[in-house]
């Protein structure tokens, strides 16, 4: 097949760019341990209130013995519960969600936090928030007529403020 020399040069440029991009993604994924969230854990959505982890009293932010944070939340038409949580910046945080009814999506604009909450499964995502500030937590999967109003608020405070507010950050609950 004849290819014009100039078109060949364009192809080299394109292949070079794609190779560079894939190489950068592959290397940083390998070095930083980045990969798509892939937790497979089932749960009975109709009996969340009876489960140990997703019962109303157990929702929210919990500090683990190793200093990491675990956030347990429930998504349901039309809100994420609890409606407002406060988290520290620059700290490993693991979010765990379950849906009480239909398919929902969780998205925090200006962060990399995004996942789907599928009924019958526990969605789990680990991340960190480098920048303190107020972030909305929005539903990005159409879930009904009130979908547009389905949001919660996440306040990220700097680590020093968090440690002042939670003197016993090694173990215990927030």
């Amino acid at each position, binding site marked *: 097949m004849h290819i014009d020399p*100039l078109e060949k*040069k*364009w192809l080299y*440029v394109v292949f*070079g*760019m794609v190779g*560079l*991009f894939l190489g*950068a*993604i592959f290397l*940083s994924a390998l070095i*930083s*341990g*980045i*990969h*798509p*969230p892939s937790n497979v854990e089932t749960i009975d959505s109709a009996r969340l209130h009876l489960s140990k982890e997703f019962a109303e009293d157990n929702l929210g932010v919990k500090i683990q013995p190793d200093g990491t944070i675990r956030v347990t939340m429930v998504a349901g038409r039309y809100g994420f519960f609890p409606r407002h949580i406060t988290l520290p910046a620059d700290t490993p945080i693991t979010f765990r969600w379950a849906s009480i009814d239909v398919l929902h999506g969780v998205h925090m604009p*200006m*962060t*990399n*936090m*995004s996942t789907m909450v599928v009924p019958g499964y526990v969605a789990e*995502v*680990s*991340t*960190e*928030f*480098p920048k303190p500030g107020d972030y909305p937590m929005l539903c990005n999967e159409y879930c009904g007529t009130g979908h547009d109003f389905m949001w919660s608020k996440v306040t990220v405070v700097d680590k020093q403020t968090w440690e002042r507010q939670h003197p016993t950050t090694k173990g215990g609950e927030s």
Partner: protein
Amino acid sequence: MATPHQEDERQKILNSPPVGTWALMLIVGAGMVLAWLFLYYGVFLPRGAVH
């Protein structure tokens, strides 16, 4: 009808290297690479790794 002078000019253009295309290739390629690197290393990764 082209005069001999115009024909010479035309042949000269056809036989010369396509400098403009190379410049365009370089500008478009470098621009896309820089924009991608900025979005990946300057925006995406600093927002915190997800796993």
